[in-house]
């Protein structure tokens, strides 16, 4: 398929402004005649639904949670980037744009990223106006901090709960529209199919999760803002309910799925404790400002740590390998996420992991050096120039508590270990997916009238996302991009009139959904949905995880194919449709994750290079760093659905053209 990204002409800096000036508009008196469906109520979905309703469109918003406020954007900890340059450290729209392109390992679209950087400032203004309580300095001005991969302070935050505060801001805006009757909320509803009429998106089929009723909803445009697909790995930092179903359903209806192999594996999560584990917990990237990451130099010492014969403190300084400081002296423990994660895997693969779990996977994040440094500083600041070692330690721990107290408490609750006394144990975990539904500059998929926003689309982060950029993108899409581009599309719909749900296309889609549900419920197999989901997760983690190679990927494609067959034959979904049935919900989601997993392996296999979060063992330099192939792989890989057999999907390529930025090797040494 020929992909038209619809990037406007003109100089990069003027593209968005000029383009907006020439987009078609829908007059206020016509907007109430137009319905828009928004699926998902995270940052992108809530902000889009609120903004479109404010404009006067009829908005129907859907979420599977019991309230729109619970979407997984709520869990983002660190912050949101914006090129405000409040700290006077030379930041600008261009620098934010440049850092994002470089951070993404030169696999993102220039025009989209520039627009993102451009609207970033408006996001902060908008959120403050909504009453989002960002952290402030004593003078009353907004505070900023630094994040990985940048040399300026442009991250705005609200303690370790920035995602929560931004989402509650968007939720409040949406709530206001619901209260005014301009938006209608369908909570505990799951979209199970897209309805197309004459090639255009005209509605969805949704299941009411309480009654099981299969409902038809029509609209003149559909926005998918359903988040990422990290749960394909079973264990991830995503919420338990996060899923790919809405995105996958539109893929099956003709929307191309781009770069599925680009997955972000976050370096600092609490390691797996056992086979009953359901979910992994992130420890904020900010901890890497104060912690030093290490493993023992020898396998023997690591083994002794795992069996409890040696405590971390028993290992002498000379016998520790601070591997990030050793390999990346200039960024040290603050190397970007993909690089830090791979380095942890490497030392564990060498048998030097320190966690006593099934895989021995874990490394230390040690605060003892920071306790001494900050303890001494605090003592001096208090006028004590001859502190005793005990005083230093006490003051150092106090400093840590002020800075990271909530994270340390969270760690202790989960692991029952006290990180003030013994190093934290951490290991990388799946966190964010850069790939997603292919969209053009308007955020429209290859289906007319079907738009995709936030993590669900592929557009802005290339092959690796920088910290504090996901929140920025979600709100940029919803508040400041979609309202313009959707109106441009809808300008041609003002004469369409109400779309009837009696159309045969609705009937067919509803029948498809009902059929799938009854197949699952009547299958009466012998294994639970989780059994299959865990199996899928293991294949993905071992063969489509941090290090990939041709052999493993080929095996993964075959194994997932077999798993799919086994799943449809042997899955046991208890209960009925006409009730709240979490197992049925899970079965419908896992079915789509299995398909997607296979496509991810195929995408990773075709991409014969290493870039960002996609690391192919065959493509690395002498020092084990990613080896990009800009001549052959500077493209977005977008897949087209070709029926139930996923291996038949066809790849289309959108060439990435860099007009403004000179492509270079990404160097953090």
């Amino acid at each position, binding site marked *: 398929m020929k992909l038209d990204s619809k990037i406007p002409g003109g100089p990069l800096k003027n593209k968005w402004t000029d383009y907006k000036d020439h987009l078609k508009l829908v007059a206020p008196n016509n907007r109430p005649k137009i319905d828009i469906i928004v699926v998902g109520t995270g940052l992108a979905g809530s902000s889009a639904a*609120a*903004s479109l309703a*404010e404009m006067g469109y009829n908005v129907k918003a859907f979420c599977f*949670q*019991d*309230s729109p*406020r*619970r979407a*997984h954007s*709520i869990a983002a900890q660190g912050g949101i980037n914006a090129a*405000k340059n409040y700290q006077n450290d030379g930041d600008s729209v261009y620098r934010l744009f440049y850092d994002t392109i470089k951070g993404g390992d030169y696999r993102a679209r220039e025009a989209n990223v520039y627009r993102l950087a451009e609207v970033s400032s408006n996001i902060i*203004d*908008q*959120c*403050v*106006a*909504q*009453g989002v*309580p*960002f*952290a*402030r300095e004593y*003078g*009353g001005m*907004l505070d900023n901090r630094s994040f990985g991969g940048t040399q300026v302070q442009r991250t705005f935050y*609200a*303690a370790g*709960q920035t995602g*929560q*505060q931004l989402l509650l801001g968007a939720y*409040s*805006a949406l*709530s*206001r529209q*619901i*209260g005014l009757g301009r938006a209608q909320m369908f*909570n505990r509803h799951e979209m199970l199919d897209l309805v197309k009429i004459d090639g255009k998106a005209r509605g969805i089929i949704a299941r009411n999760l*309480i009654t099981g009723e299969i409902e038809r909803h029509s609209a003149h445009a559909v926005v998918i803002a359903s988040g990422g697909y990290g749960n394909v790995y079973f264990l991830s930092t995503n*919420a*338990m309910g996060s899923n790919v179903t809405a995105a996958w359903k539109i893929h099956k209806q003709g929307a191309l799925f781009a770069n599925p192999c680009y997955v972000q594996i976050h370096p600092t999560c609490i390691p797996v*404790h*056992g086979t*009953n584990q*359901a*979910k992994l*917990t*992130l420890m904020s990237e900010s901890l890497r400002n104060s912690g030093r990451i290490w493993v023992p130099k020898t396998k023997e010492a690591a083994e002794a740590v795992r069996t*409890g014969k040696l405590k971390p403190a028993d290992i002498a300084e000379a016998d520790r390998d601070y591997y990030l400081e050793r390999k990346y002296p200039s960024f040290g423990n603050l190397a970007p996420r993909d690089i830090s994660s791979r380095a942890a895997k490497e030392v564990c693969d060498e048998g030097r992991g320190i966690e006593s779990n099934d895989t021995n996977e874990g490394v230390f994040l040690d605060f003892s050096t920071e306790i001494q440094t900050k303890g001494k500083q605090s003592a001096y600041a208090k006028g004590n120039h001859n502190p005793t070692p005990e005083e230093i330690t006490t003051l150092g721990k106090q400093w840590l508590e002020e800075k990271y107290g909530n994270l340390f408490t*969270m760690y202790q*609750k*989960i692991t029952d270990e006290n990180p003030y006394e013994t190093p934290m144990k951490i290991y990388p975990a799946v966190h964010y997916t850069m790939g997603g539904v292919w969209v053009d500059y308007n955020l429209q998929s290859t289906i007319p009238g079907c738009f995709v926003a936030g993590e669900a689309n592929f557009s802005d982060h290339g092959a690796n996302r920088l910290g504090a950029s996901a929140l920025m993108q979600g709100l940029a899409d919803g508040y400041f991009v979609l*309202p313009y581009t959707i109106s441009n599309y809808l300008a041609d719909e003002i004469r369409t009139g109400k779309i009837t749900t009696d159309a045969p296309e609705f009937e067919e889609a509803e029948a498809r959904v009902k059929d799938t549900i009854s197949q699952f419920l009547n299958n009466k197999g012998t294994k*639970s949905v989780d059994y299959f989901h865990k199996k899928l997760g293991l294949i993905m983690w071992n063969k489509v995880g941090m290090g990939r190679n041709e052999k493993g990927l080929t095996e993964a494609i075959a194994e997932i194919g077999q798993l799919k067959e086994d799943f449809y034959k042997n899955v*046991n979904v*208890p*209960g009925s449709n006409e*009730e*709240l049935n*979490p*197992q049925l919900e899970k079965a419908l989601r896992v079915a789509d994750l299995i398909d997607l997993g296979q496509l991810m392996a195929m995408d990773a296999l075709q991409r014969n290079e290493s870039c960002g979060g996609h690391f192919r063992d065959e493509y690395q330099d002498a020092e084990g760093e990613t080896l990009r192939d800009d001549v052959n792989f500077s493209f977005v890989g977008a897949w087209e659905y070709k029926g139930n057999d996923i291996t038949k999907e066809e790849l289309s390529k959108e060439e990435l053209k860099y007009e403004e930025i000179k492509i270079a090797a990404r160097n953090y040494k």
Partner: protein
Amino acid sequence: MSAAKNININLKIWRQKNANAKGSMETYKLDNVSTASSFLEMLDQLNEQLINERKEPVAFDHDCREGICGSCSLYINGRAHGPDTGITTCQLHMRMFNDGDTIFIEPWRSKAFPVIKDLVVDRTAFDRIQQAGGFVSVNTSGNTIDANSIPVPKDDADKAFEAAACIGCGACVATCKNGSAMLFVGAKVSQYALLPQGKVEATQRVMNMVRQMDEEGFGNCTNTGACEVECPKGISLENIARMNREFLSASLTADK
């Protein structure tokens, strides 16, 4: 540090087919539960066992499993979010229990939170309170004033944040003998009352939110303070006092 071990437990769980059915406590036995597991992973394990025995698994609300989405909502051994403080149910771990323990698990019990099924309740009353006034009436434009043009004292910003940290789980209501939602509403009212951006509509906001709260059937506050004790985010009772002040002054000045 205590090494993880496996324990065997008995569970008494509220089972209720749907909103209209009569529910009852059912007994289950669950063996080999790792003390390193979270409480909800223990329930996952029970459900896996029930599915394999071809019995109906237990329905419960949960999502992020890291204490921030506010979905999980279990009343465990007579306490909202169970026998630990400052945490949600999903952050509770099995090391808090002993081999041979019998654990009682119930849904939130409150008139305004009707049971949907088993341990799942309907908390949309909270959403409706929010819709009645929990916002600043500012449209998306990109042309609001610069974020730094109104300085906000750090102390006010910090207090607003502490109030805004509420996750809307409903533990305050569940634990209150009156089923009062005043900690939830007080936190939202306070967040906006403490910020200049929220002051403009302060009068209508508190009147509208309190009116909706009463219509939803939540009880009144008698200053027992149980809500503050069980709140996983440590939302302070001061927020209720601030809401009462706001409400009083609004009642005296608002156009009726």
